């Protein structure tokens, strides 16, 4: 089985990772609704576990093994993998790439996987949902599904680092110094992508566990850049980037002073709005910084998206 050309035939298993079900369920809700409406049916593999990313810092080999375990489960289910988290996408993509190019590693990984009754032979494709939107669903189908064009809306694209990098593992899918897929998708919804100096900067999530102030300081730089340029929202494709920019935005304001007030939307929420879904269908009430200005611009009454403190705290 090769890496391309069989996209439509073999189904995708939706890979959630650890963070989405526990902390940003709205991303899963919006992704499933929008994908289904675009004709993309997901399988669910109940045994999927950690992608290995957090373990790579401690032991690269165990991390690869955890990733390979998920690849083997997808293979057994006859599926490719569609991931929503960029760190999971990166970890699984790197593992799939390495296992495809290193038969010795594949043998030794399989010796360990045999202990849990699994085997990986190769050929599982790992794709981020947004890449699937751009590459496999494509512009004509997406534009045909729109019922509410987001004219006049300005969105700051934030490409999660591991959506693009390391570029060799991602098969040089696009130039990571000048990416355009998320910009294109924003344009297809009728909105305008903001070009801004800090567009390619990391969210800082990778050091949140080691040094919170440093991590939030990194996030703050981009939020300030976007706030200064007056975008209606940042749109992104990773739960961890969202935790940095949305969940932690109040904390950043408190820690460093100054008001930011930058709404943050997962791209499937943006696409969902353009496809006529109501904010509540897309879990937008669960976002911490509400996109009031954006909803006003496209004529949606704010009452739809108001959230109670209790709901916000329960997440």
């Amino acid at each position: 089985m090769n890496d391309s050309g069989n996209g439509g035939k073999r189904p995708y298993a939706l890979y959630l990772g650890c963070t989405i079900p526990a902390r940003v369920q709205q991303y899963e809700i919006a992704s499933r609704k929008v994908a289904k409406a675009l004709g993309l049916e997901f399988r669910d593999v109940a045994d999927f576990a950690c992608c290995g990313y957090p373990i790579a810092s401690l032991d690269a080999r165990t991390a690869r093994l955890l990733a390979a375990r998920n690849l083997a489960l997808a293979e057994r289910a006859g599926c490719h993998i569609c991931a929503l988290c960029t760190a999971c996408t990166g970890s699984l993509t790197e593992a799939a790439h390495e296992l495809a190019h290193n038969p010795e590693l594949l043998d030794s990984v399989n010796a360990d996987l045999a202990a849990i009754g699994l085997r990986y032979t190769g050929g599982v494709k790992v794709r981020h949902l947004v890449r699937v939107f751009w590459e496999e669903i494509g512009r004509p189908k997406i534009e045909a599904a729109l019922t509410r064009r987001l004219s006049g809306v300005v969105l700051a694209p934030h490409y999660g680092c591991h959506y693009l990098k390391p570029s060799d593992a991602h098969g040089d899918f696009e130039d990571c110094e000048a990416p355009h897929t998320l910009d294109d998708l924003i344009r297809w919804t009728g909105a305008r992508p903001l070009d801004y100096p800090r567009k390619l900067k990391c969210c800082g999530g990778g050091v949140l566990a080691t040094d919170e102030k440093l991590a939030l300081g990194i996030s703050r730089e981009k939020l300030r850049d976007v706030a200064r340029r007056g975008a209606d929202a940042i749109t992104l494709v990773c739960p961890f980037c969202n935790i940095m920019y949305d969940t932690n935005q109040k904390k950043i304001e408190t820690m460093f002073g100054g008001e930011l007030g930058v709404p943050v939307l997962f791209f499937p929420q943006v696409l969902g709005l353009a496809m006529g879904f109501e904010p509540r269908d897309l879990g937008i009430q669960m976002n911490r910084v509400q996109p009031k200005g954006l909803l006003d611009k496209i004529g949606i009454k704010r009452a739809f998206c108001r959230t109670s403190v209790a709901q916000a705290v329960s997440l």
Partner: protein
Amino acid sequence: MAAQPVLRTVTDTPDDEPPAAAVDHTFALQVASRAGGRQMLRCFACGTCTAGCPVAEIDERYNPRRIIRMVLMGFKDEVLRSEFIWLCAGCYTCQERCPQGVRVAEVMRTLRNLAVEEGIVHPAFKAQAELIRGMGRIYEIEDFDNKKRVRAGLPELRKTLEDIKTLFERQKLNERLG
């Protein structure tokens, strides 16, 4: 006649040179033998990595060019016991931009792996590893979460994934984490 410049002879030892015991001349090769390490030997210290680094931009404790220099010069103990190897955000900007093809982000990961092998484990990463070993994921899924999922029309998730423990044991990672 102009004064002759005073040149230091090779037998002089500068005051700031660390004691010989702190230098392990095989360190660079130990790192180079790991995945992503070989290209590090080509580093010509241009500083592109540090210039584009989002961490170095706001925190001078972290400087990838300096870390690679220290590795190449054999400061094994100083590097592996430092906090700075744990400050890489893993964004790969340095690695993508390096004109010499040094896989900088992977080198940082390798340095962390080597530190773990020496028994030096960052507590935050250790805590994450213990959670993953115990349940197969970083965040716990409780009955309450599954009820919420079902209400939202989402499939239930497994609360624990036991076979992850088997994989950890086969790698003897628990022992290394102490």
